[in-house]
């Protein structure tokens, strides 16, 4: 999905990568990253996202295509000349140097004066709330603290671009969520361009301006988080991001933006025609759990069916109801735990409904 935008700070143009000359790990990759943007490359393991990051950093070379930084092609520029900050998955802190020395390292390389080094290192440490830890060794820090030092080190020499390769993977859930916010705030304060790689979709949605979803070396969709979640363009994205209810059927009629789909069990649903091949083609309907209404008011929803409640799981702030309808045993509805909401009972039959605009007809899943 190339965007011809002259403000692009990072540009991948028809980039391909193969390790053995036969199998393409990255297939025809095109991407423009805006200056100051937080862009996440999201995808399952082996989808090629880390390879693209490494090509941008300079540790892998593109088999074909061009990568440019601020308008200048960098295919042949070695990593140590690219002025890109990088945070690695295992932090890669230098264990034989103190935290201060770790941060001072890139500044010494750039031949800064001692007083300037002191000043910048202090500023960087304060930015990650580790001002008192300058004298410690990395081995004496906790995982979260090490990660923050790694982030500070990647930013201390004020690069224009920062790359992060799944930096939060090793942290526990609570710390991870806290760090997500911290990184996001640092990004907003500094205004650097960030390219972030992760396989955790909630992380991508939390932190990014735009998310680029990868599968098998090909970009599936590039969009801001809301658009990605609410308007996935194909089944992979719909199923990868957030929870997804699927119904299978065949297109029986197309009417402008909408289409009529006859499900395998006979009911006819009206849905948004997002990614179909025309009348007679197979399709998979995608429906987000929170867009399904239980016991809707008469006439409020375009599509209504009878559903049997199979399982109810209490999750504190909402109840996760598993229903059976239209041949789908795993139809999930999230019922907010509010006093006004209907109380479901396992085994009972109830009506559910949804709007056409919330139901997207996508490519059939194999």
């Amino acid at each position, binding site marked *: 999905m190339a965007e011809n935008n002259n403000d692009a700070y990072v540009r991948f143009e028809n980039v391909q990568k193969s390790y053995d000359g036969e199998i393409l790990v990255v297939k025809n990759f095109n991407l423009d990253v805006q200056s100051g943007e937080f862009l996440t490359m999201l995808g399952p393991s082996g989808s090629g996202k880390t390879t693209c990051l490494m090509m941008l950093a*300079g540790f892998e070379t593109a088999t074909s295509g061009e990568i440019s930084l601020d308008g200048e092609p960098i295919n042949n520029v070695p990593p140590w000349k690219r002025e890109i900050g990088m945070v690695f998955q295992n932090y*890669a802190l230098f264990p034989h140097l103190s935290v201060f020395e770790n941060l001072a390292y890139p500044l010494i390389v*750039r031949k800064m004066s001692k007083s300037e080094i002191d000043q910048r290192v202090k500023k960087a440490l304060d930015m990650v709330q580790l001002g008192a830890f300058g004298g410690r060794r990395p081995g004496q820090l906790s995982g979260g603290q090490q990660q923050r030092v790694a982030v500070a080190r990647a930013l201390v020499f004020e690069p224009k671009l920062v790359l992060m390769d799944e930096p939060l993977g090793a942290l526990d859930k609570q710390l991870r969520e806290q760090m997500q916010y911290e990184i996001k705030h640092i990004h907003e304060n500094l205004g650097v361009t960030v390219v972030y790689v992760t396989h955790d979709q909630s992380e991508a949605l939390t932190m990014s301006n735009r998310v680029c979803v990868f599968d098998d070396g090909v970009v599936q969709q590039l969009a801001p988080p809301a658009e990605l979640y609410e308007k996935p363009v194909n089944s992979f994205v719909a199923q990868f991001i957030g929870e997804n209810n699927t119904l299978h059927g065949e297109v029986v009629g197309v009417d402008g933006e909408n289409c009529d789909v006859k499900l395998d069990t006979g009911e006819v649903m009206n849905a948004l025609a997002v990614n179909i091949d025309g009348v007679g083609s197979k399709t998979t309907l995608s429906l987000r759990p929170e867009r399904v209404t239980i016991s809707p008011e008469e006439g409020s929803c375009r599509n209504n069916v009878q559903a049997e409640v199979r399982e109810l799981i209490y999750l504190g702030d909402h109840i996760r109801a598993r229903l059976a309808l239209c041949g789908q045993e795993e139809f999930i509805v999230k019922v907010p735990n509010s006093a006004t909401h209907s109380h479901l009972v396992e085994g009972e039959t109830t009506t559910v409904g949804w709007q056409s605009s919330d139901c997207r007809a996508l490519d059939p899943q194999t």
Partner: protein
Amino acid sequence: MSTLAETSSGPIVINGVPLREQLSKAEHKKKMTALFLVAPLLIFIVITFIVPIGNMLWRSVDNPRMVSLMPHLVEALNEWDGKELPPESLFQTAFEEIKKNIETNDIGKVATHVNYNLAGARSLFVKSKRKFKKITAPPYREQMIAADKRWGEIKTWQIIKAVSVPITGAYFLNAVDKTLNAEGEIVNQPESKRIYVTLFIRTLWVSTLVTLLTLIIGYPIAYLISTTPPRISNLLIIMVLLPFWTSLLVRTTSWIVLLQTQGVLNDMMVWIGVVSEEGRIQMIYNLNGTLVAMTQILLPFMVLPMYSVMKTIPLSQLRASQSLGANPFRTFFKIFWPQSIPGIGAGGLLVFVLSVGYYITPALVGGSSGQMISNQIAFHMRNSLNWGLAASLGTIMLVGVLLLYWLYDRVVGIDNMKLG
């Protein structure tokens, strides 16, 4: 049903038995079980390691010969003050003991023993053996002196007394080229007999050189093995380990084939024209031969510890360093090299300690200028049978190596696999 009774101000008691006691019993049982499991190995180590070394240490000061063969004389000498010629009673004791040893055919052993410190002692005893047959009755003193005037020299008796002490430092003195003169002072051995200090120095020097050479050659090899992909690194490791699978003797003698004056290298150089037929270089049966062969044989001992340490340096750190702006040279010196130093220390210590004790290689290819202390120890064990001297040389070596180990521990730290 057990009851947990807690007194208001005392230890916890279960079923009448204090908890502390039960705990220590359980701990004791665990310890005994552990000891029982370890016992076979412990016994093995004690028998094959501690006992022989202890034996060696003992032999370096043990002086049993005179005490076992001439106990009465030793006793008498003990009471003699050493200032004037001994009294008649001592001469009598000496005569009786010598006669006894002649009969048991042990006089040769006595003669050899005294001869270590008294030049000419062998001939003295041989002559006395003959002449003493004629002496049948006292006074022994005059008759013995008449048989050989050396019996009338106070020096003779002083030295016999000196070599009779059950615990002696004579071997250690000898091992550092010193000796006790007749007056009992420590003096240098005569020039021609002073070899050990030179040998110690040479041994240390050769070991240092070999350690340095293996380091210079081995570091790049270890670096390559730890940073190249498995396809290449596996091949390199096999090449480093392959020599281990061939006999040490074969490896050493193959150097002879290569380096000897009529050997492959010299032939090639003459053929090319670098040296003339008469000017063939002697590269073996000298210090050079020892150095070359030992370096090759000890190389794996340097490469493998260094490799194991280098393997723990994550490549992501090197990438991080590059991403921060440091070129590959700077990355190597600032990030890789400091973290590889513990491996150098471990490999260096291993190679040094091994080469200090090396025997076969200097024996085969060292000639005379390439001899090390181990060769002298072997000589005394097998040829001159001066086990006391061999043991003291060995003890000095052992103490030296332990000292080095202690020093290394103080400076670098044995457990220290990272700098700081």
